[in-house]
């Protein structure tokens, strides 16, 4: 698709999203500001205006329904709502591989997963290799349906970035910079036809460039949101750095919210001055990172809420249940061949 044609496809909402890097600032100060004192009174430890809560998921692979050991989107929404009630500064991220993997989302080409994520109120996601499963042009169509920002700092088409590289969220009194990274292996870890014409560039170069750009804009925190993977490097390919290896070569990242390797890091791990977190797979866990800014330098504490803990402590969200019920019916009709 030509750039001009692509530009015509961009909806007004997306035009607004793309036209400035800063989003959410007006909402955060104007809307949430209305109720700040009341919200603060409800937090666990009094005034939490100096705290930021980051909730994160990765590699759900279409597991949007509750199942054995899997909390599903009904509980994700209940957890997110609870945190948003107790803390005024909350950011909800996903590190990729969302829309594909189960009939309830495959048969609907991902739209049911997008609808659930919209209800939950996800803020930002970076696409994983399996998010290209229905072809990258379909991912761009879904981008219009998603309320969140899709970001990737190293996904290119014809030399231009396919998505915005980063977003700066103004949350409470803090400016939070989040940039996205895709594993360069994306070019052959989905059917190569799905990404033909795209280039997945060096994550080292992208990190260096966008950390610098974000720092120049005076952010309080730099988060890398990567579908990159944790652990040992692929010995065959020096470009396929894992998150922890990448962090040996770059500076300025505070927090790396990772996915792709399906690792469960109960308290995160420190590598090269950054905390790396990953919340396992299939919505078996949801990650919670608490950032405390009260001493100038941000202090981190990371944990996971497991599916068992979620189903014990929370009620399923009934609006999500409705979406799932409807999606299951439409997926059935698709299989029967009577759906659209």
């Amino acid at each position, binding site marked *: 698709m030509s750039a001009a044609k692509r530009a015509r496809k961009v909806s007004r909402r997306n035009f607004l999203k793309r036209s400035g890097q800063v989003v959410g600032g007006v909402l955060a100060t104007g809307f949430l500001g209305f109720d700040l004192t009341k919200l603060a009174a409800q937090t666990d430890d009094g005034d939490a205006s100096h705290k930021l809560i980051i909730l994160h998921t990765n590699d759900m692979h279409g597991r949007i329904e509750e199942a054995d050991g899997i909390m599903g989107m009904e509980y994700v929404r209940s957890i997110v709502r609870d945190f948003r009630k107790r803390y005024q500064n909350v950011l909800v991220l996903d590190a990729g591989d969302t829309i594909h993997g189960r*009939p309830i989302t495959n048969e609907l080409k991902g739209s049911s997963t997008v609808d659930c994520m919209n209800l939950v109120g996800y803020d930002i996601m970076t696409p994983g290799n399996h998010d290209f499963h229905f072809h990258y042009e379909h991912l761009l169509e879904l981008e219009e349906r998603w309320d969140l920002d899709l970001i990737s700092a190293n996904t290119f088409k014809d030399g231009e970035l396919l998505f915005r590289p980063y977003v700066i969220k103004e949350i409470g009194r803090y400016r939070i910079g989040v940039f996205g990274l895709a594993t360069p292996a994306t070019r052959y870890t989905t059917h190569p036809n799905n990404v033909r014409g795209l280039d997945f560039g060096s994550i080292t170069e992208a990190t260096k460039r966008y950390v610098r750009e974000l720092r120049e804009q005076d952010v309080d925190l730099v988060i890398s949101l990567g579908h990159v993977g944790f652990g040992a490097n692929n010995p*065959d390919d020096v470009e396929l750095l894992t998150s922890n290896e990448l962090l040996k070569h770059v500076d300025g990242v505070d927090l790396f919210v990772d996915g792709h390797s399906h690792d469960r890091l109960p308290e995160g791990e420190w590598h090269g001055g950054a905390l790396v977190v990953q919340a396992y797979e299939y919505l078996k866990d949801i990650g919670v990172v608490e950032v405390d800014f009260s001493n100038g330098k941000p202090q981190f504490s990371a944990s996971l809420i497991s599916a068992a803990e979620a189903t014990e402590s929370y009620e399923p969200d009934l609006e999500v249940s409705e979406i799932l019920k409807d999606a299951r019916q439409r997926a059935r009709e698709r299989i029967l061949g009577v759906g659209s």
Partner: protein
Amino acid sequence: MHKRKVRFALGALLVAALFLSAGHAVALDTEVGQTEVRLEGDRALIRTQETNLGNLVTDLMRAETGADIALTNGGGLRDSVEPGPITLENVLEIHPFENAVVTIELTGAEVVEALEHGVSRHPDDWGGFPHVSGIVYSFNTNAEPGSRVQEVRYQGGPIDPEATFVVATNDFLSAGGDEFTMLKKDHLEEFATLESMIISYLQENSPVAPEVEGRIVIYE
């Protein structure tokens, strides 16, 4: 892209036709077969060792295509099934990719090359780990990637590197997926999607009871 869409539609029609002809309502919980044993597709296992699900799937790929050898990637098999009825949903969870089964022609040397590539990341749970039918192979996980495969046997003897074989695989691998560049070949034939093939095999051959039988031997 266009071609893939058409093929997917055909796959979906095939699924519907199978059930309508059998007089059943088509729902995700419709039973398509039976298994007497747990079909092992857990990520940590199917990406690192032989499992009975890998054997079942490659055996049926070979049987349904008439190929000499079948090879598929562990990353394309994504769930387990407990003993008892197998539902349509179970099959769509095992293989959610709509990959077509294809046949290609490979020399024995290219088969070995594909196996070398497939075990190069072992013991990482990498999706390229190869499940096979028609051959057995052994490899040393501690050897250097590229020289791990020790023995490949076809019909009871060492595979002839110069002989040619009809190999059934999926169109993800034959497009160079997971960097299996040696499998990028013109297709001899294209068949149904793997999930359709699994369903039709299960309908004719249930109950199934595949076993781990020493097709893939790992030296440590």
